[in-house]
């Protein structure tokens, strides 16, 4: 079997890419994409552990996360649509009305 750590390393890399995306991009939809990637990285971890520890609860968690991620994506995208209608942009850098 492939050592567990390979999966973990892959997961860290995907998570890192996702995090990098969340932190650097100014496009709100892309931010959401980054978040999805991070969640996927977590999923990889869960599933890998569940396989290696022979414990099904990891898969259960992953199921939950997928559900959650879908809901979150729906709500987040709806929000961005609403913001776009109100402000004409989805650039998070310009959404400053709550600043200070």
């Amino acid at each position, binding site marked *: 079997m492939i050592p567990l750590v390979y999966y973990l390393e892959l997961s860290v890399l995907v998570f890192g890419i996702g995090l990098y995306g*969340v*932190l650097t991009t100014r496009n709100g939809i892309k*931010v959401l994409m980054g978040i999805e990637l991070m969640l996927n990285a977590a999923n990889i971890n869960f599933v890998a552990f569940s396989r290696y520890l022979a414990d099904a609860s990891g898969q259960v968690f992953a199921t939950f996360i997928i559900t959650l991620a879908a809901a979150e994506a729906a709500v987040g995208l709806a929000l961005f649509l609403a913001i776009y209608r109100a402000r004409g942009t989805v650039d*998070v*850098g310009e959404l*400053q009305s709550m*600043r*200070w």
Partner: protein
Amino acid sequence: MLEYAWLIPLFPLVAFAVILLFGHRFKEQCGYVAIAFLTLSLVVSLLTVVDVLGGRTGGSPGISWINAEGFRFGTMIDQLSALMLFAVSLVGFLIFIYSLGYMHGDEGIQRYFAEISLFIASMLGLVISNNLLFTFICWELVGLCSYLLIGFWYSKPSAASAAKKAFLVTRVGDMAFLLGIFVLYAYFGTLDYNELFERAPEFAKVGSGILGMSVLTLASLLLFGGAVGKSAQFPLHVWLPDAMEGPTTVSALIHAATMVKAGVFLVARTYPLFTPASFLVVAYIGGITALIAALMALVMVDIKRVVAYSTISSLGYMTLALGVGGYAAGLFYLLTHSFFKALLFLAAGSAIHGVHSMDIREMGGLLKKMPITGYTALVGAWALSGLPPLSGFWSKDEILVAVSARDPVLFAMAMVTAFLTATFIFRWFFTIFTGEESERSAHAHESPATMTAPLVVLAIGAAFLGFLKFFGFEEWIVRALPEEPMAIGGDHAMVMQLSILIAALGIATAYIIYNRKAVSSELFVRNLRPLHTFIVNKYYMDHLYIALAERVVAGFSYLMERFDMLVVDGIVNGVGRLFIKVSEVVRRVQTGLVQDYASAVLLGASILLIILKLKEVLA
């Protein structure tokens, strides 16, 4: 009636309240209300005086006013208060009657009679008080009325300014008076006159810890400070001439006959508290005041200011007399002065009423037009100048005798003053009443009977009160003192001759210069230009005080205000501004971008991890 003496100030007080509250209902009749109540008080006063003449003195213990020891306000009727009661209520009564005519038709007549009733009530309260604090309260109320009455025609800027000046200058004296009260209360624990006098000897030697003075010296000097303010003594005399901005009746009543006597009265009342050291100060202040005021009276051209300066001079005389131990002499002069000075003022008021001018140079030859005014004024001037047989002579003579026995310098000052007094008052008289008629005098006519009748009564008093001397006035009045004052030596006959001579000389000088015009007064003015300028400018004391008030005090307060705004408030606002500045920098961290916050979280987590790892590695 001794027991009912407390009624005396109460009647005018009721009059005050009635006029204040209901006066608008009977506008022109306010005067009669005031006079009616004053008549009641006059009757009680006279009955009280009769009681005292009959040898009864005393008073009532009164009521407790502040619940601490020594604040029982009652009455104290002795020879001194009887004397004052007589002078104040009688002169007050006459001036009230005179006011009916003088103030007729003035729109502020309700206010006038209300204020003057309050004044007479406080003045009467002042003289019968048995407690130093109550005296002070009346003293202040009297000052308040003086303030309001000087500023009676308050729309005139000069009147408003004179009222302010009077209040503030006397307030300086009042401050000293109040401090005197504090000192006395701190050591004696009471302010009741009798108790103070009883225990005074105990404290004659006790040091007060201030400038090495004994308690009594300190307290008496502070009390005298009050007297200096109220009785317009040097150096606080500057308010009195300006006070002539008020109605002439006010000048006569308050600034000649009664209130300005309060200072002298206070010294007489607290006589047992004075020590030799403080007497010396009192005498010299009195002497200086008498002299410089007489000099100023010589050069003034305002009909009322001449009399005002002569009042200051006379008050200086009284103070001088008290200072050298001439208790009876000073009070005798106080009594006679009340009459002839009120007379002079009312005569001046009558002349102003006739001529509608205040400048004596615009008058002249009024004797024919206003005979009653003129001749009564002559009586007053005669009495003031101190020639026999009018009252001024007898009382002034007593003072001169007392001074001659004590101090040659003071005696010389008193003599010069006597000469100057005779000169300036006859200069005043001759310029107004004799000589050629001026344009304004030509239209003058005699004043109504309400004004001339009081003049006549006052003239009678001014003429004959001096003879009280032969009815044992002096022996009678000194009974007010707890112990006999030291006997006064002095060469009676010599002083008497000298004083007659000096007064005659003074009148003669005035006659030559101002009636005959044999020598022009211009001559003196020209040859003594610097001196004349100096005196006409009142020794530049007003300038000095104004500079002190406007430059030093106002400047200092302006600085304080700036300090308050810039430093004290500035620090507070500065702290606020500092926080704003700091937050302006700090708030840049709060970009509002979730990514920045997430980066910060990531950074923090990384640092934490690195630290933990390092710890592990190092351990």
